[in-house]
């Protein structure tokens, strides 16, 4: 039932006092004519409604969530308490500097922590998500080349295993993408890369560990090849959880980095945002960062505009309360906690991979990092059971399925990321489920095509949704329906 179908005309909450000044309305020219349809409900109606929706959702506390490349780790509660402090929540972004020193200290401290972790020199918190960070970083690359009069560099090299946002971001800055094939072992093919670079190379975007969950051991050669060609190197930080505290993107030869605070740094995903995608860079790129950076001067914080800033990618200073949560987490972890998170994430993934290797095909042999990819191509050939079927059947076990059909270079892929906040027992249960499903694929494949059966809803007809677009509730239809009812 939709919220619009609850309640009754005339029902509502008592929220505002009477107006204590004479009422003023717009002139007729500007007065709203269209009646406003919004729910007319009681507070109880609202609570029941959203409690129901909550029960039809699956969060990190509902069970195992090994969604590859998404780093669905536990979201600590103290982070939420800190983000709810009135000293942050109720601060106007344009309040005088003297009254926002605390907010600026948060930004400055988070910048220092994250620069140390990534090996960068400066960082902006403006970007609201990873893709927004990619856009920001690429604009900086564009601004850098243009500032040198190097206007022919318009190509960005992206390996074929990259996240879909990478190529889309490339287009958004008017660049074109050059896709470089991966080698048999999952790494970037250096010969291909050497062939791809040239005087038109603006830069490279790379995730390391890559989306196969593998650390590219030629990383220093890769960044060197790009630099030798006059390009810049961009690190997509989606997979930082595997390596933080072990090795730094800056030391691997990257010039620009984006992070996903909602992945690596434990802030909740919110059903798809708000996230935070800070962008860090080395000193020589700092003049292109978005406005504004925080600067400490004589013990006080002020804002400074980078000299050749690309401008803004949104208003104000980014998703500030997300930064508060991430900094709370960083304070908690400290210098020992950061590498410990990475190590246990990697240990969990290797353990789980090892427990499944004899039944599911693992196309790459090196130790994985924080995630691993299985190919169900052979299983599908043998049993007609697809990656989707296995994923949907996992739902009946109360497990969120791994990422499906990604990366694109692995057929029938399932990509699992058992983060460090998952216990051995949870992983063992999931392994058990995966193994049972493998058995079932051979003994009773039909039941897997029907899965899931114990979830709040069945498999959705996505084709119908795309063909017969219904993108909103139609009040007029409903009212017509009501009148028809009355006529009967």
């Amino acid at each position, binding site marked *: 039932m*939709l919220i619009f179908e609850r309640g009754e005309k005339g029902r509502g*909450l008592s*929220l505002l006092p009477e*107006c204590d*000044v*004479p009422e003023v309305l717009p002139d007729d020219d*500007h007065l709203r004519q269209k009646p406003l349809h*919004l729910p*007319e409900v009681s507070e109880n109606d609202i609570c029941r409604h*959203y409690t129901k929706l*909550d029960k039809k*959702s699956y969060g990190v506390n*509902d069970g195992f969530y090994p969604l590859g490349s998404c780093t*669905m780790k536990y979201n600590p509660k*103290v982070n939420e308490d800190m983000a709810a402090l009135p*000293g942050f929540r109720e601060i*106007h972004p*344009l*309040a*005088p500097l*003297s009254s926002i020193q*605390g907010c600026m200290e948060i930004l400055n401290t988070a910048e220092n922590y994250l620069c140390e972790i990534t090996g960068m020199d400066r960082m902006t918190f403006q970007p*609201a*998500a990873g893709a*927004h960070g990619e856009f920001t970083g690429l604009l900086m690359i564009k601004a850098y080349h243009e500032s040198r009069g190097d206007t022919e560099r318009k190509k960005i090299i992206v390996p074929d295993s990259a996240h879909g946002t990478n190529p*889309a*971001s490339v*287009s958004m800055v*008017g660049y074109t993408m050059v896709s470089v094939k991966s080698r048999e072992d999952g790494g970037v093919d250096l010969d291909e890369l050497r062939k791809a670079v040239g005087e038109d190379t603006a830069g490279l975007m790379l995730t390391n560990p890559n989306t196969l969950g593998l650390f590219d*051991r030629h990383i220093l050669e890769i960044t060197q090849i790009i630099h030798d060609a006059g390009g810049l190197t961009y690190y997509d930080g989606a997979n930082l959880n595997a390596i933080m505290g*072990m090795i730094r993107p800056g030391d691997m030869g990257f010039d620009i980095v984006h992070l996903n605070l909602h992945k690596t740094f434990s802030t909740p995903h*919110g*059903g*798809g*945002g*708000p996230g935070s995608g800070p962008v860090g860079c080395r000193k020589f790129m700092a003049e292109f960062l978005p406005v504004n950076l925080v600067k400490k001067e004589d013990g006080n914080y002020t804002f400074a505009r980078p000299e050749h800033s690309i401008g*803004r*990618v949104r*208003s*104000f200073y980014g*998703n*500030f309360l997300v930064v508060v949560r991430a900094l709370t987490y960083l304070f*908690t972890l*400290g*210098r*020992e906690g950061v590498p*410990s998170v990475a190590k246990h994430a990697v*240990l*969990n993934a290797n353990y789980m991979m090892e427990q499944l290797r004899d039944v599911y095909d693992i196309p790459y042999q090196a*130790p994985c990092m924080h995630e691993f990819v299985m190919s169900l191509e052979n299983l599908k050939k043998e049993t007609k059971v697809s990656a989707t079927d296995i994923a*949907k059947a996992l*739902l009946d076990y109360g497990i969120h399925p791994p990422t499906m059909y990604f990366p694109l270079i692995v057929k029938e892929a399932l990509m699992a990321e058992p983060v460090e906040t998952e216990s*051995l027992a949870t992983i063992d249960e999931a392994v058990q489920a995966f193994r049972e499903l493998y058995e079932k694929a051979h003994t009773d494949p039909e039941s897997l095509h029907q899965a899931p059966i114990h979830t*709040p*809803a069945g498999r*959705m007809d*996505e084709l119908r*949704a*795309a063909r017969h*677009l219904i993108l909103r509730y139609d009040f007029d239809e409903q009212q017509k329906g009501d009148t028809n009812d009355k006529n009967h």
Partner: protein
Amino acid sequence: MGSYIPATDYDTRKMLDAIGIENIDELYRELPDRVRLRGNLNLPKGMSELEVSRKIKEISEKNVVYPIVFRGAGAYRHYIPSVVNSVISKESLSTAYTPYQPEISQGVLQSIFEFQTMICELTGMDVANASVYDGAAAAAEAIVMCQKRKRDKAFISETMHPQVLETMKTYCFGNEIELVTIPEKDGVTDLEFLDDHLDEETACVCIQHPNYYGNLEPAEEIRKMVKKRKARFIMSVNPISLGVLKTPAEYGADIAVGEGQPMGLPLSFGGPYLGFMACTKDLTRKLPGRIAGETVDSNGETGYVLTLQAREQHIRREKASSNVCSNQALCALAISVYLSAMGPEGLKQAAVQCMSKAHYMAQQLEGIGYKLVNYHEFFHEFVTESKAPVDQVMRKLEKSRILGGYPLQGDRKGQILWCCTEMNTKEEIDTVIRILKEV
């Protein structure tokens, strides 16, 4: 040190044995030795929860929370019903990922569908998306929606919020769209300039209504000029104002965008906020970001999915119209709850109170010599001259724990942009007037 890692030494040993290695470091053997971190990161030691919360609280107390606020300029303090925070704290909704598995994500998907419906109702437009990062990003994405091969010029009014304008410039630089700013004339968009300069290469015209200075724009006239050139008309609107003001659809806009923050999101030093985007039916496939649609499941029950994904980055990769991936789902949820709690009458009340109080305050300020700079119809913001140096005025108000209007810069230095919402009482307004008399 806390790290939320449940593994005991025993568990770790067990896992290492199963893999057949001695220690975790062996798993990192592919890392180039030369650049691996040797010692510790140069960071402080980890802390207990009590220490962390003490420390963060201490930092938060270095900020000043003003109990009385007359400042808007893009971020507005409104009443947030208690039920909003209660709902967005629900853990399954707040900690879920983007709803890729619809069977276990109907709650999130339905809430997006309801949000889209409410945004359509507010703006009068046909279709809305699941939101983008903020109002500035929404305005910038709207321009990109209008870009065509032979139409790559965008006219943006200088009466828009300067930070929104700056964001649009950035997006235009990226997408290689020529941005032309339409000058301001007496507090609104210069119609003459616009009529003279619009041409067949114009993709769109974008205005803010009410504009940055609070004034209502001559939106009807602008629409006529834009349509004559067969370009698109984008309006960035304040959602609370739509409780009383004409909808963008009634003004004839093709795309309506805006900052959703006034609808139940706290000031939060600028974020997280939310950008809403709605458009006419013919532009549906140009809309960026997530869109939820209705369908049926295998049992024939009504359900919701992310639809029109063929537009999106994970399918179209470099041919996608936008790279938006995350939206601001939890903020969208907060807004849906806010609008449900307010209802049609409540939202209208809030809008009327904003407008009435701003007019009362403007009148009182005029009475003590803080003259209005322009005389246009306005909603809940307006600009006055200042009788005393602006810093002095602000400092005096701050001493009484009042955050005064926003001191404008540039050509408008010396002027103050005031804002009233339903949060401001008559008594507060009278207090400001009393204090200003003494400056």
